[in-house]
């Protein structure tokens, strides 16, 4: 049953529409006669200086575009900004529409959180890497889990063969979580967990560890990625199909709003959508569409938008096109704030804020000349900071080969620290505001993203759009075009299709010990042998009941993990109730 106060009746909530951007302002920042003057000047410049220059030296290319394909004019000036209104469209940080940032002081109040994604091997291995990173100045934890955990399999399941501990830390029961966070005070450190199909189980285990440490739930801070829509679109981790998966996401949003006020129950993610091949515009649109869908679903089950919206967080990719990325962050905040206010009627400021984590683009890194990746990551990280991210992960130079070595991840962390302490970007708020190019690009991206959002609204929302394969097709098409552009030399990648070298000196690579799999299999079997089989059976039945009856799954899952039911066993309950999901072989 949806949770709602007894005195409120469930109003049917018709699907709203994503509101359009406001048109030209009646109080534009650049007065009409000034715009006319600039336009006249531009026209004469085009006819004179530009024409003369082009006669001597043609442009290097027929057309210049951003990475998303937005054509870039010869020059951007106030006349191109149309009815731009600084107060209405840009405003002030911490004030609607939050283009300049969600907080009034931004980094002058608090730096972004340096939060490096980490996880490999056994819980002991990852606990060690966590402590290393915290010792070297990282502010908060970010946990990578292995494919078996992400896909709902225990280490001893046949599907886990060869995969245990390879892409992240192996976990199966609460025992693994206890080891993972051993010696780490959950009341003092915030933790992000990148897990989706089995997020409910991971969160329950985290809460249980907090309880064992004596930390009150209200003090537990962090984020769980838990964004299932993007899984069907891009990351492709699932146990069951989209509809039950989204239901579980909403159960968690609801439960966290009541039980874990400092925890972000979803990180609505663009990163994976982008890495799968989307352009920045598509990333912007599809991610916001996912967020809108979660809000819509929660509101439809009777939740008050102002009760949960403030804890929805986001996660952007930061790719190579520096200015486009900055514009993307700004456009995202503006579209989200307007949508929350006008479509969902959110009243509290906190409900309108788009707070985000960011990660530099893994897909932009090269295997060739790997040290170049340090430079790519630095530029991308700088874009994220100028874009106003709240939290940041920088990739390591060796990640086209393997998970990062200690040395490589230290350089990645230092990259953030040098930006924070040496570059000056920490002292100023939204420094690119007012740049004609950046404001124009922010508006262009907003406009193009809104076109996608309108189309998705017409399809009936993002769950429907995903079922129909719309974002998946768009992404596959963009990925194909990107690869074509590289192979035809239109898009240059240093070291790969230009400026190649004969061979690179080998770099150290992290190898995952094959003994990890054995140890994790032994551990889960030992836990299964030690626990009360009867109690586990009862608790799993409780999970199944909640799944079938539509009551919130989190309380019975928490009870199950405390009895040391395994992640695979709880996932099997989901499979039993809803069936295991399979994707077709479309390409």
């Amino acid at each position, binding site marked *: 049953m949806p949770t709602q106060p007894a005195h409120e009746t469930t109003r049917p909530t018709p699907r709203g529409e994503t509101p359009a951007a406001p048109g030209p302002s009646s109080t534009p920042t650049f007065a009409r006669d000034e715009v006319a003057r600039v336009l006249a000047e531009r026209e004469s410049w085009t006819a004179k200086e530009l024409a003369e220059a082009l006669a001597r030296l043609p442009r290097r290319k027929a057309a210049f575009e951003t990475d998303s394909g937005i054509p870039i004019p010869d020059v951007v000036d106030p006349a191109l900004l149309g009815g731009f209104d600084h107060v209405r469209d840009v405003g002030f940080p911490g004030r609607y529409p939050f283009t300049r940032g969600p907080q009034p002081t931004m980094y002058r109040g608090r730096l972004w959180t340096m939060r490096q994604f980490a996880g490999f091997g056994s819980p002991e291995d990852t606990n060690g890497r966590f402590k290393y990173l915290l010792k070297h100045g990282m502010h908060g934890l970010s946990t990578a889990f292995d*494919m078996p955990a992400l896909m709902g399999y225990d280490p001893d399941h046949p599907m886990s063969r060869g*995969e245990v501990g390879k892409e992240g830390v192996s976990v199966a029961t609460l025992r693994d979580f206890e080891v993972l966070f051993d010696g780490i005070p959950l009341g003092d450190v915030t933790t992000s967990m990148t897990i989706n199909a089995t997020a409910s189980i991971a969160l329950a285990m985290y809460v249980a560890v907090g309880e064992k440490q004596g930390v009150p739930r209200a003090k537990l801070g962090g984020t769980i990625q838990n964004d299932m829509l993007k899984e069907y679109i891009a990351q492709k981790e699932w146990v069951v199909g989209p509809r039950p998966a989204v239901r579980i996401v909403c159960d968690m949003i609801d439960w966290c709003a009541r039980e874990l006020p400092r925890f972000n129950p979803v990180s609505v993610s663009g990163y994976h959508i982008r890495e*799968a091949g989307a352009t920045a515009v598509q990333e912007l649109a599809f991610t916001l569409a996912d967020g809108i869908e979660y809000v819509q679903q929660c509101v439809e089950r009777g939740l008050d938008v102002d009760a949960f919206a403030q804890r929805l967080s986001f996660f952007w990719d930061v790719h190579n096109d520096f200015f486009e990325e900055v514009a993307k962050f700004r456009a995202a905040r503006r579209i989200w704030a307007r949508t929350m206010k006008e479509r969902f009627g959110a009243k509290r400021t906190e409900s309108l804020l788009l707070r985000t984590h960011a990660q530099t683009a893994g897909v932009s890194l090269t295997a060739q000349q790997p040290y170049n990746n340090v430079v790519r990551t630095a530029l991308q990280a700088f874009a994220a900071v100028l874009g106003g991210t709240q939290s940041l992960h920088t990739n390591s130079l060796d990640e086209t*080969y393997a998970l990062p070595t200690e040395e490589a991840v230290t350089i990645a962390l230092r990259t953030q620290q040098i930006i924070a302490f040496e570059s000056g970007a920490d002292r100023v708020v939204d420094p690119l505001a007012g740049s004609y190019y950046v404001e124009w690009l922010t508006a262009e991206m907003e406009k193009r993203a809104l076109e996608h959002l309108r189309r998705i609204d017409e399809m009936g929302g993002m769950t429907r759009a995903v079922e129909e394969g719309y974002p998946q097709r768009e992404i596959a098409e963009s990925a*194909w075009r990107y690869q074509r552009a*590289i192979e035809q030399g239109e898009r240059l990648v240093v070291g790969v299709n230009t400026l190649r070298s004969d061979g690179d000196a080998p770099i150290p690579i992290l190898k995952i010990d094959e003994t990890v799999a054995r140890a994790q299999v032994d551990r889960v079997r030992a836990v299964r042998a030690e626990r009360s089989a009867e109690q586990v059976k009862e608790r799993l039945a409780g999970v199944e009941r909640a799944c079938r009856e539509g009551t919130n799954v989190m309380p019975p899952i928490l009870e199950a993990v405390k009895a040391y039911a395994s992640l695979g066993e709880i996932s099997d309950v989901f499979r039993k109730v809803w069936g295991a999901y*399979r994707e077709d072989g479309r*390409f």
Partner: protein
Amino acid sequence: MSTARPLRILVAKPGLDGHDRGAKIIARALRDAGFEVIYTGLHQTPEMIVAAALQEDADAVGLSIMSGAHMTLFPAIVDLLKEKGAGEVTVFGGGIIPQDDVPRLKQLGVAEVFLPGSSTQTIVEWIRENVRPGVAAA
């Protein structure tokens, strides 16, 4: 003299790795190059891949893997093909595979490994030069 039929290539995603951007691009590039392509979709076990290869009369199987499980899954597929009497099916692959692992994979029967940065053109040409159509069943 037989009419050269198009080569049949099975593109497969073994294991739990869901990163299919590369596999889908390869599949499309191979199709555009005139091969007949079957894409298995995600989360395939070695058994499922080999069954598909046999069912589809594949001349070659291309494996895409980013998850680090290649040293387990690639040889498992090579061995199972041999076991099922399909040892002439060429197995090739790509993904996130350290250079150091390539010689061992080749020893174990993987014909070629295409590392990050490989172009689709390189892969198409390699297939044309190295994959022979299987002996068609009567």
